[in-house]
Every structure is written in C-alpha cells, then in structure tokens.
C-alpha cells in the first residue's frame, strides 16, 4: 500500500483525492513509523524548500525516509516541491540540504526574457519525453499538465539522464525525473486531469509490480 508522507505539506488532500479517484490503495502516514508498512511512498509538497525540510526533520521523517528509499529501495514519487526535496541541495532563500536521492540542485527560474513570468504558473506541454519513461508511458500527445513553481531541479553534469521530460518557460526546465525506483514530477499530476491521473496510475501500477 502506498504511504503519503504527511509532513504538513498543504496539498496532501489533493493528492489523496486523486489517488482515491483512480482507485489506488493508500494511507496517509501521519507518523514516521508508519512508513515501515508502506510498499511505496508519495512525497507531496508545496511551499518553501527549507520550511519543508525543517518539517520533515522536526516530525522525524528523515530517517524513516532514508531507510525506506536508500536501504529498502521502495518506489517513491515526489510531487512538485516533493521532487525538489529529493535533490542534494536547494538555493531557495539561502542554501539548504535536501534528501540527496538525485544528483543535482534546485535553482531559481530566471528567464532572460522578462515576458516569461515567474512563478511559472499554468498548463504547459511536456517536451523531450524519453521513450524509456515509466511515468509517461502511453501518455497522449500533446501532454499538457499543470505547473506552479519558481524553482527547478537541475541535474549535475553527467547525471542528465534522470530527466525524462522537460518543459519550456524561457529556458528548459526539468519536468519529470526517473532514476531506477525514484520518480518525481515538477508539475501537479493530481491537478492535471486525465494526463496527470494517468501518470499517477502508471506509478501505482509500477508499485504493484515492484512490491
């Protein structure tokens, strides 16, 4: 069963609503110890990077998450800020350490052309979709999903292969990441109607096969 990490990230309800709508089996992990029972993990997130890391730490989620993902290799899906938290570090309001599952950093979106407004807010096309992508398999083109963010994940040189789709907003931004059993979406699949729900469905199917 999928455990949604409840570290007081504020869109937990939307994520739960979407999983419910596609008939997935899940529970909300209010307590870190409950992650031990999860066969897979969804890490939601909105808000600021450092606040969220502080909350994860304060509520005692860091150790159980590291155990579940690094040691037990449970499938994990990070959504929006939840994906950014999987990076090594973020430069949002200072420099902050992340969970370190993805080699790269989180940086501010700074388009050269001022006509591209930040936050990058709204529906946008997924581009450069990797044929090997698990999350995006059988997605209908053009795949349009809902983004809202001011920072983005930038892989370190040599680790670009984790990026399995991008989005364009004055510059090319990471839209999805996939590294073995670690997955992330910069956009909100739970708020992207059919396209988004298909992505969640793909993850749910994957977790069944890798339980």
């Amino acid at each position, binding site marked *: 069963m999928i455990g949604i990490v409840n570290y007081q990230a*504020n*869109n*937990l*309800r*939307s994520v739960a*609503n*979407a999983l*419910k*709508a*596609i008939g997935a089996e899940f529970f909300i992990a209010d307590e870190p110890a409950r992650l031990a029972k999860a066969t897979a993990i969804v890490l939601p997130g*909105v*808000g*600021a990077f450092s*606040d969220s890391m502080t909350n994860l730490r304060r509520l005692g989620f860091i150790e159980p998450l590291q155990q579940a993902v690094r040691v037990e290799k449970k499938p994990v899906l990070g959504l929006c*800020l939840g994906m950014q938290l999987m990076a090594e570090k973020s430069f949002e309001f200072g420099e902050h350490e992340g969970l370190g599952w993805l080699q790269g950093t989180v940086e501010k979106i700074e388009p050269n052309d*001022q006509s*591209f*407004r*930040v*936050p*990058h*807010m*709204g*529906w*946008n*096309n997924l581009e450069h979709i990797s044929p090997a992508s698990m999350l995006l398999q059988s997605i209908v083109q*053009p795949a*349009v999903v*809902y*983004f*809202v*963010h*001011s920072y983005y994940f930038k892989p370190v040189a040599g680790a670009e292969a984790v990026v399995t789709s991008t989005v*364009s*907003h004055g510059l090319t931004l990471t839209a999805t990441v996939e590294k073995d059993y670690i997955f992330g979406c910069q956009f*909100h699949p*739970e*708020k*992207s*109607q*059919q396209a*988004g*729900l298909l992505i969640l469905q793909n993850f749910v199917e994957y977790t069944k096969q890798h339980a």
Partner: protein
Amino acid sequence: MLKKRLISCLLWREGTLVQSRQFQHTNSVGDALTAVDFFNTWAIDEIVLLDVSRTPKHRALFHEHLRELSERCFVPLAVGGWVTTLAEIRQLLSEGADKVVVNTAAVRDPNFITMASESFGAQCIVVSIDAKKNTTGEYEVFVNRGKDAAGMRPDQLAKVSEERGAGEVFITSIDHDGRQAGYDMELVRLVRQATSVPVVASGGVGEWSHLAEAIIEGGADAVSAANIFHYSDQSTKKAKDYLKLVGIDVREPEFYKILLPRKPVYRV
C-alpha cells in the same frame, strides 16, 4: 509554451452559487458541486471559489462544500472570501484548496501577505483586487466586498503584494462586473504593468471575444468569468474553442471525463 488559462469564478453565497452585477447578487444558479463537475468536463483550466456571503456565519457549510467538491475537482482550485488568518488558510488547503485568495486582508494588514507567503509559498497566495474609478476619475481599490474605499490605487496594491510574496494577482473591475460589456482593459493593463507575477483579468465578460481581448491586448495571463458560464451547455468548452480558433495557445478544448459520477438522490 505556457498556455493562457480560462478560469471559472464561482460565487458562493450561503450555500448556493449566485450571479453578480457590480457586486450585487442578482440570482441563485444552483449548487457548486454540479458546477464543478460540468466545468471540469468542459475543459476549464482552473476554478476560483469565493465565499461572498454577507457574514461569516455560513463558514461551516462553506468548508463542508469545499471538502465535497475538491474531491471531484482535478484542475487547480483557488479558494477565497473571509480569509484573514493563517489558520484559515491552513484549513482551506487541508480541505483541498490549491491556492488561497486574499482580498480585504491584503489591504488591512499587508504583513499578512508576507506571513502567508512565507508559510505556504508564493505560488499559494493570490491577491484579489477589486477596483473602480472614484469620483475624481482615478482607479481606487475597494475592500469588504467592494464597499469600502481603501485609499490606494490597484497598481500600488499589486506592486506591494508582489513584493510581499503574492504569486498571482486577480484583478476585478467593480463597475464592469456583470455588465457584459467586456473587461476594464485600462485597469487590466495598469495592473499588468505594475507587476511581474501572473495577472488574471476578471469582471464584465459578455461574449467570448472579451476573453481574447484581455489576453491579446491586455496581456492577461489568465481570464476569469462567472455569470456567462452558467445556464448554457458546454459554456467553458465553447469559450476555449473560441480562444483556440483565434489563435490563442490554450489547453485542448476537449471533453474531460468525470471520474466519480454522482448517483441521483431523490427526496421524497
């Protein structure tokens, strides 16, 4: 490319949705749940739900409706009306709101925007500005459901709100509201130029060309309408069809499935 968004604004008053003309509520148009289902099906890009009740005494029912409708809303949902505390924002978000709309409190306590943005992120805080021309012919912000003059210009408020961490500005013309003569383009442009965050135009749509006008000529990142989407079949999809037809980059105006069909309830 980032798509231009079509937003349906739902005005919730004491349990039912209403239509509005210059902020006076004219008639009830039914329940919010039905509206959310239809607009989700008809290719809407986002829904804004505002509690425009005259008093906060219907809040419990509003929260109940929000919890129900957020379960079936798979496009972003922004919620506002009577939002004055961080606790209120936290509750709305926990009930399925993706963004929170702040209006009167943004003027009365600018620091509230800072605190809200720091706690929940800029992307979560929409500042809604209601404005009209005052007796001297200058644009002025009005708060408390358009009743009280705030003594500041909408472009000033937009700028200050952005500096304090608002992620989006929702600009409504009180005079144009419900008049069906189009958005107040001067007002849209004024606010658009004052800020670098996304701007949503609101108030006055009478035909689909008004939507295109605010995007093409006003530079709006998203366009919102309320009254015009009620009572007509496939309204929001037809609006999107039009926007696509005139060459605006929008998310495909197709029919989207309702995932949780409701069973009819018959009252005997």
